[in-house]
């Protein structure tokens, strides 16, 4: 499947500050992609370049299936982090206006606006001025106006980070539905949101590409076996932990309160060895876990490197 959007060596410098450097990625049609990274990593800058609000200082963006002379913006629906509307307009007026600007006829724009407002749960507030809307309502109106021309790619900048837990839940539920219908790219600094919704992730750090791929792939390739040992914390057990000699199969050893954590390369070997030693020295084990590293740990590691 060819990419819907291809970014090649995308770069943006503000003066001498390099906000985004040499980022390349593909957005495949029908996929949901998260642009992940800590605050200040260059997510918003990247998204603003994709939306055409900023001119890249280097690199290239290409959209598939663009007719000659057609603006790439006709394929895009965009929702910024904190959308700003015309406060004097009503929600419905804005949605209709957005539709008309995207080339819908008056009748089409009205019916699209009504069905989308219904869908995002704003029917009751549709005839009220936007200046009285709450943050969550604005975000939902933002979704409705971004979808009004049935865009092929929906770009969202931190769609839930400014919302309270309820608003957050509402918008995430909507996104879960929307990703069935269109290609979605959204930025977030919360891994959990990405994990819940996405097929692909792009992790950036300090404006540079840190890691990208499908969530499955990343999970499998970077999964590490981890053994966690908790003891009662008695002196003998703690001394045993301190004196523990790691074998060649242990990649990393971390002391934790009342125990230790081992990142191992060969789980079978490590398991047998550790169990034998624990039994032999009669260590007071309270909890012993043989598992895998979480994505969260990987994310933290990639981002803090």
């Amino acid at each position, binding site marked *: 499947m060819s990419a819907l959007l291809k970014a090649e060596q995308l770069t943006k410098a503000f003066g001498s500050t390099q906000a985004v450097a040499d980022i390349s990625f593909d957005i495949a049609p029908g996929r949901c992609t998260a642009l992940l990274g800590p605050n200040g990593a260059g997510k918003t800058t990247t998204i603003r370049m994709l939306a055409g609000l900023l*001119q890249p200082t280097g690199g290239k963006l290409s959209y598939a299936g663009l007719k000659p002379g057609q603006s790439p913006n006709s394929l895009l629906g965009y929702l*910024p982090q904190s959308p700003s509307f*015309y406060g*004097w307009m009503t929600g419905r007026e804005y949605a209709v206006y957005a539709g008309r600007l*995207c080339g819908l006829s008056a009748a089409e724009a009205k019916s699209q606006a009504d069905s989308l407002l219904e869908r995002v749960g704003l029917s009751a507030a549709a005839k009220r001025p936007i200046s009285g809307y709450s943050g969550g309502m604005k975000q939902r109106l933002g979704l409705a106006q971004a979808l009004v021309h049935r865009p092929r790619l929906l770009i969202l900048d931190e769609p839930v980070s400014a919302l309270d837990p309820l608003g957050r839940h509402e918008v995430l539920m909507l996104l879960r539905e929307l990703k069935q219908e269109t290609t979605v790219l959204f930025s977030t600094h919360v891994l959990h949101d990405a994990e819940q919704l996405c097929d692909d992730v792009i992790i950036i750090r300090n404006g540079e590409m840190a890691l990208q791929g499908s969530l499955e792939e990343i999970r499998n390739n970077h999964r590490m076996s981890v053994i966690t040992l908790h003891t009662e914390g008695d002196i003998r057990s703690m001394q045993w932990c301190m004196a523990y000699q790691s074998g060649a199969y242990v990649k990393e050893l971390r002391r934790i309160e009342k125990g230790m954590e081992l990142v191992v390369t060969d789980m079978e070997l490590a398991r047998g060895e550790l169990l034998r030693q624990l039994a032999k020295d009669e260590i007071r084990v309270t909890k012993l876990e043989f598992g895998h590293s979480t994505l969260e740990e990987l994310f933290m590691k990639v981002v803090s490197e």
Partner: protein
Amino acid sequence: MSQWTIIWRKELLELARSYKLLWLPLVFLLLGVSQPIMTYFLPDILANAGNLPEGTVIEMPKPQGGEVLAQTLQQYGMIGSLIVALGFMGAVSGERSSGAASMILVKPVSRAAYLLAKWTAMLALVWGSLAVGYLGAWYYTSLLIGEVDAIRAIQALLVFALWLSVIGTLTIAASVWLRSGAAAAFSALGLALLLSLTASFLPRALAWSPGQLPGLASGFLLESMPEAAGMIIAAGAVLTAAVLYAAVWRMRRMELP
């Protein structure tokens, strides 16, 4: 319907909802009407001011209708331009800094259409307000002071409308360039002042300057027209077009929050 028309209608709706569509014409009308009324009552006001010995006769040359209309235009040149600049100083910068412009301009909307719709909406309101106020002034002048030649009055109105268009265009262009509305109003008014000051200090060297437009408008009414009338009008139109072109050029390259 073209995109320009859609944005233009939104601009008019905004002018209506923000009450600009009401207060601008009302203020122009008040300014226009007050000039002939003041002129008419001036002798009475002076007579009632007291401190004058009984039987004093105040000799005041009775002004011509054209003079009063020219004074009205002078009022519009000062207070009217101030109002135009203040009324439109945030046309682009306000939407840009709030982020509302980003939401609109990521849609397949031409930035030129966006700006031109704002510009034409501004022109429509400024011309409308000026016409309403000027007609009020004209009516009162012919009622209280004396008749004014209709052709001359209309010529003066059209020339003055061009001058206010120059100021409005400068304001909108400044609001594309600058982030703050106050700075936009200040620079537009500053440039307009510079134009008219240089034009009045160097009437020969700058005989064709658009800064001569207010003088030309009054000239029609006072029957003392400068010679370069055609040149001045052409220069005003060219300046407006050039400033507008520069604003569109900047708009196309503008980075949005």
